[in-house]
């Protein structure tokens, strides 16, 4: 098993945390994992891109040339990275901010993450909603394991934040389940 995921969005959309949660969980489950932020030039603004590889075998290059999965949070990232998905790959988009065109032939899941997050009262958890969707599709890890890591990462933060994140994860899972 090797899963190559490209995560991309605006700076503040929490792609770092999403990737770290998956990477941390993979590590604890004894998988090989690399997580690499791929910046553009030394300038501000724009998109944040992360390359995450999870595998049962040693990982050589942490750079992804062709992705198994694309997780895309905003339109500029979609335009920039859609070409990197393999034909039978998986595309998960934050449909509150991304319009998918007909050029993409792979399986597409549209999750209105920003909207759902606002409904939960915190737009910042849109990343966790997307994570929930990803887990429900790929089933790489159980939601419980992810929650455990999240609890660990948020241990110095307010309790409500954890509760909102938990709801966010569940709401992401639900979106996918309701499709099936």
């Amino acid at each position, binding site marked *: 098993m090797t899963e190559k995921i490209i995560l991309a969005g605006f700076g503040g959309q929490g792609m770092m945390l999403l990737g770290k949660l998956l990477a941390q969980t993979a590590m604890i489950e004894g998988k*090989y*994992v690399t*997580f*690499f932020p791929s*910046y553009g030039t030394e300038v501000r603004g724009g998109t944040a891109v992360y390359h995450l590889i999870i595998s049962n075998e040693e990982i050589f290059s942490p750079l992804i040339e062709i992705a198994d999965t694309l997780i895309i949070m905003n339109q500029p990232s979609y335009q920039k990275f859609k070409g990197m998905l393999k034909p039978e790959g998986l595309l998960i988009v934050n449909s509150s901010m991304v319009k998918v065109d007909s050029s993409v032939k792979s399986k597409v899941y549209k999750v209105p993450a920003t909207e759902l997050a606002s409904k939960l009262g915190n737009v910042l958890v849109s990343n966790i909603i997307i994570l929930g969707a990803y887990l429900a599709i790929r089933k790489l890890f159980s939601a419980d394991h992810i929650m455990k890591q999240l609890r660990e990462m948020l241990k110095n933060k307010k309790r409500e934040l954890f509760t909102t994140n938990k709801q966010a994860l569940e709401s992401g899972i639900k979106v996918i389940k309701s499709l099936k």
Partner: protein
Amino acid sequence: MKQLLTGNEAAAEAAIQAGCRYYYGYPITPQNELINYMAIRMPQVGGTFIQAESEIAAINMVYGSAAAGGRAMTSSSSPGISLKQEAISYLAGSELPCVIVNIQRGGPGLGDISASQADYFQAVKGGGHGDYHLIVLAPSSVQEMADLVYDAFDLADKHRNPVMILGDAQIGQLMEPMEFSKKPREVFPLKDWALTGAEGRKRNVIKSFYPIKGQLEEFNAHLQKKYRTIREHEVRYEAINIHGADIVLVAYGTSARICKEVVKKSHQSEFKVGLIRPITLWPFPEQVIKTMSERVQCILTVEMSAGQMVEDVRLAVEGKCPVHFYGRTGGGVPTSLEIMRKIAEVVPSNLIDKVNRILPLVEVK
């Protein structure tokens, strides 16, 4: 316990574990995670953290702390390392142990912030003035970054010589599971040459100025003798599959990771690719390369530069087999497919068929 850390953070924490209590730095991408980590961590262990006004100030603070007997470190990336060169020459000339981390980025000039290996010459050939050498260590994983930084402090003290860790933007920012397996250092070698106040002993002077005719030559002879000892005892490298290999790759750091993929894929075919990965870039593992060159058809050096280490490979090989080069510059990272194509281009004609059979194995799927 395994942790998920960036190479930069792993380097910082390993320094703390090795007993480094004096860190001086100046922000520069892509090594910011290192200085940022030190800003938080040094005060926790009662150490000194100073964000200096420049790289020049930072390395001279290292010079001071090293002269005073402390374990001191600075880190930067290419343009900042260029600024430090004068002081690095002084450190070598005053035989002061310290650790300097270079998370290389693209050059020349302001270049960019992506991974590069274009500071090889500067690191191993003496970037500053005078006849001197740094011990240069090149990690190719986050784990190895931590291990080598820890060892670097011991090597520096053992030989009274500055040690450079030559990483790059990829190793610095990559997160991988790693572990601090070595015991935190609490006992340090005696430094009877250090500046501690001359109470009850002859005074110590730290300097590199030898104005009286003959003295400087004598001092240089001493340095060269020390460098010979380091050459004899401190060479480190990793060799994979070099026995019976049709071609051997030579690569370090990030490039070596990708070469390993080619080596691994070649297991599935009858065309055998080997790899020598220098871990010490100075002293360079010339002996193993020389011996191996007598047995293989050709060598391919892979770097993220326009061709720097390849010169040392050629010196080691002394013309015994052809040495080819594949490089990417300006943020380009070689892919396994590119390396395979280059192999196909350079192998002697009797091997072409074998190579063509393995090419499909490295096509990205």
